[in-house]
């Protein structure tokens, strides 16, 4: 396994992870469609997963791997709830545009 690490340095993984995360943040901020926003969140979660796995491999610690499973589980639950909310919002307002879902204010 160490040969693999010698081929691809740690920083590359971290760079990929941060690029994915930034893509997620940007998508989260600029996209108007609720489903796209939701996908951006998944992207961010998986970027974090990648860095967890990377460090777990680097430091030979299994905790990071375990944490990834937790994150995936939470992501699955979140996907179920989030999609249900999206469907409910669409039924109620016939739109998925984030800018038009603005009732959460005084």
């Amino acid at each position: 396994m160490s040969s693999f690490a010698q081929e691809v340095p740690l920083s590359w993984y971290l760079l990929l992870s941060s690029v994915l995360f930034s893509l997620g943040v940007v998508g989260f901020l600029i996209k108007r469609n609720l489903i796209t926003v939701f996908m951006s969140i998944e992207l961010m979660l998986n970027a974090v997963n990648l860095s967890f796995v990377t460090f777990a491999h680097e430091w030979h610690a299994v905790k990071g791997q375990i944490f990834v499973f937790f994150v995936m589980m939470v992501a699955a639950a979140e996907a179920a709830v989030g999609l249900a909310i999206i469907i409910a919002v669409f039924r109620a307002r016939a739109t998925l545009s984030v800018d038009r879902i603005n009732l959460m204010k005084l």
Partner: protein
Amino acid sequence: MNVHLHLWLIPLLPFVGFLLNGILGARLPRWLVTVIGLVAPLVSFVVVANAARSFFGLGSALVSIPYIETCPFSWISIGTLHVDFSFVLDQLSLVMLLVVTGVGFLIHIYSVGYMLGDRGFARYFAYLNLFLFFMTLLVLAGNTLLMFVGWEGVGLASYLLIGFWYQKDSAASAGKKAFIVNRIGDFGFLIGIFLLIGNFGTLTFAEIGAKLSANPAWQGGILTVIALCLLLGATGKSAQLPLYIWLPDAMEGPTPVSALIHAATMVTAGVYMIARTHVLFDHAPFALGVVAVVGAATAIFAATIGLVQNDIKRVLAYSTISQLGYMFLGCGVAAYSAAVFHLVTHAFFKALLFLAAGSVIHAVGGEQDMRKMGGLRKHLPVTFWTMTTAVLAIAGFPPLAGFFSKDAILFAAFQQGPSGMLLWFVGLVTALLTSLYMFRLWYMTFMGESRSPEVHPHESPWSMLAPLLILALLSICGGWIGIERFSQFLMPSTGARLAESATPHLELYLTAAAVAVALLGWLIADRLYRQKPELPAQLANTVPGAYKLLANKYYVDEIYGATIVKPLLGFSRYMLGWVVDVAILGGIAWLLGGTALLTGAILQRWQSGNLRSYAAWLALGAAAILLFMTAPSMLGAAGVNIHLNWMGR
């Protein structure tokens, strides 16, 4: 010997009655309410009677006197001060308990008939039982603090019962007046208790007495102050000058309440308290003199007002104040046993007077104005004869109860030298006035022809007449025990005073004088209200000033209103209401509220409702935290060394 008298049952049973009737009463049938309301005082009375039996050695065994029951749990224990729930039964509290539970039970019976048609039947009995609970607590208390609890409690019960018909405005405000005026007296009592703690380190009557008898030379000084504070408390509860003003208004309550609380028992609590703490007063001659003067002044003052009142209950109220004045006079000349003797006989005949007056009021359909009565003798024979007994008793005709006790007080006053003779003279004039206004009431109510022909009076039911008859019997026989035997009996708790007469026939002469003035009062009343009914009006016209002064009760209420109530109200309204409440408190509240509003108005803009703006703030915050975490190491790498003292590291 270990005989258990179970004193704790005496207050507890009425309290259970209060709880049952107070909580469930509205849902219980009327007969059950009656049973609960009557059984509680009856069993209390039986317990007291049983205690009296062991006291006199009639039962199986004699108890040691004073008999003390202490609750196993201490109440207050601060430093050297220990206060227990302790009940003390000695001669004084036994006599008082017999009166309270005995007369109390009779009045409970009477109330069944009197209050039968009232919607608040259960509430009434709950309050009445509550009163008995606190009153027995007051009497049994072995220390001033426990007595104070009972003292406040009877004030509460009195307030509740005066304002029993709370729908009536006058009743509600009379209740408030009684409560507030009593607060002034209670303030004095409380200060007295604090001074006792400070100077004696104990509140137990027995220990105070022991400390004083160990220091016979300790006279006056702080003891006078304590005694005067206690006297202030007593004047409030016992309606003496200058705090008597609540008692006449207290007649707004139901008549049995006036009989029980505002004639026979509660208002005598002040006399009882002075007799209970008499060792203090014995060491404070000045305070004792004040007691005597207050008593004598109140006696004659109230008697003159009583002369011109037209409301039958108000006449009796002023008469009560006047008789309480006698008791204070008795206490003031250190004739405590005579004062307690008068307390007992007064409880009999004044309760009887009130109950008979209640029977009259009941008969004529709620009318209390004597000018609209008259000629009731034919319609209410039982009430008439019992009332006559009571009138003769209070006027002081031998051999009825009032004669013996009043005579004892007057005799004791006469023995006190020149100033005592002045007090005696005031007492004698008061006796004349007493006889006069009582026979005036008697003539106006029962004699002559009816002045309201449209009403058809009817005699009261037996539940009301039976207590009248028993009380009438007591009013006749109550004094036969005689003051010598009575004071002999009370001697261990009230001290032996009552000197024998110096000159052999002095007592006889004084007695003759007292009877003579009583007779004189009757004759005057007979002339004014029977032979020449037009004479009183003419008399009032010849001295209109004096008559107006009396009819308006010396304008005392008005004077208090102008000098105390009005400035207080003004102070409350302007100083406390505007300056403190509106300006200071309101300003602070406004400042706090304004700050919150302003902050809210600024922060509100964050709550745009736009999901993407929330997301942007979230990302910005995350970026800021990231920057904060990484900045030191990044700067360190760039050669700048900064020390962030973060989280105490």
